[in-house]
């Protein structure tokens, strides 16, 4: 065995030495579901088209009127976005980066750009779907105000109205 093989074996052995703690739990602080509806509708319209986050293969998967539907008998552009779809959208958003989401929420929504969701939407991180909001514009405020605990409903309405 060469010296490098020995080093690699020791490193791999150390990496596998401890089993994960089955009782370990991570407490997640998430923005309130009650304040999410208008945020979810905005995200569905902006991000949830069938070719983007309304595609079943996406990590961040969104359901709603403008894209993927939750009910098997519904279709894009069919019924209004349902509460079940908004529940699913909420879980998608909150579950994407739960630890970072917790930090942002615990900091009252400060520095929301820590979340990939915000960076991608602002286009400050590579995003095939392009730049969808600018920091401080209605769409951005719709998302970040929700992260801060009080959804800016006027911003969400304005944002929903500015996209086709």
């Amino acid at each position, binding site marked *: 065995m060469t010296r490098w093989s020995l080093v690699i074996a020791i490193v791999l052995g150390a990496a596998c030495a401890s089993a994960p703690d089955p009782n370990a739990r991570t407490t997640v602080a998430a923005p309130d579901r009650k304040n999410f509806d208008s945020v979810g509708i905005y995200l569905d319209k902006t991000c949830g088209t*069938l*070719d983007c986050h309304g*595609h079943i293969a996406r990590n961040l998967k969104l359901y709603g009127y403008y894209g993927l539907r939750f009910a098997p008998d519904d279709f*894009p*552009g069919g019924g209004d976005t349902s509460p079940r779809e908004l529940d699913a959208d909420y879980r998608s958003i909150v579950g994407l980066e739960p630890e970072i989401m917790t930090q942002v929420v615990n900091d009252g929504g400060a520095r929301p750009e820590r979340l990939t969701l915000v960076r991608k939407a602002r286009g400050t991180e590579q995003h095939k779907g*392009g730049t969808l909001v600018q920091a401080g514009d209605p769409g951005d405020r719709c998302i970040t105000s929700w992260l801060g605990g009080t959804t800016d409903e006027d911003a969400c309405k304005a944002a929903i109205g500015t996209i*086709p």
Partner: protein
Amino acid sequence: MKRLLVVTVAAAAIGACGDPVHSNAVDALGGETYGLRPGPTHRPGQPCLVCHGGAGPGKPEFAVAGTIFQTVDALDFLQGAEVTLTDSAGNEITLRTNQTGNFYFPASNWTIAYPMTVKVAYKGVEVQMKTHVGRDGSCSSCHSDPVSPSAVGHVYLVADPKAFPK
């Protein structure tokens, strides 16, 4: 020398494998349709960029391509429709559909800044797509039949055949 040979063979083998997801998508399209030969009118209604998206086997590569049909209930091609595409950088192009309703634009001439909006016009009827296109220049990736929770059906000008402009 022996090690170099092994590395070369391994690299060639990996390269030869390609992308099985893409290969499966190409295979799923099946053979040519409507008795048409490969060319500008072929495979109407299929997701063009599966083959013409840069990974082959179709050439040239397209930035955007699709098919427009006349009505919602039938697959009658719409020839002569104007399809206007506007990306988020303000670039706008208008394309005209051919005999099988197909339109396309080469990728070498346009890198689309998504999101992009789409409008179809024909003999005074103008239809704006309800949503923007977020990232896929292949209309039929989403506009496939039958309508389902994840598919919106083929692109058509009017729902009611009586409303189709003569």
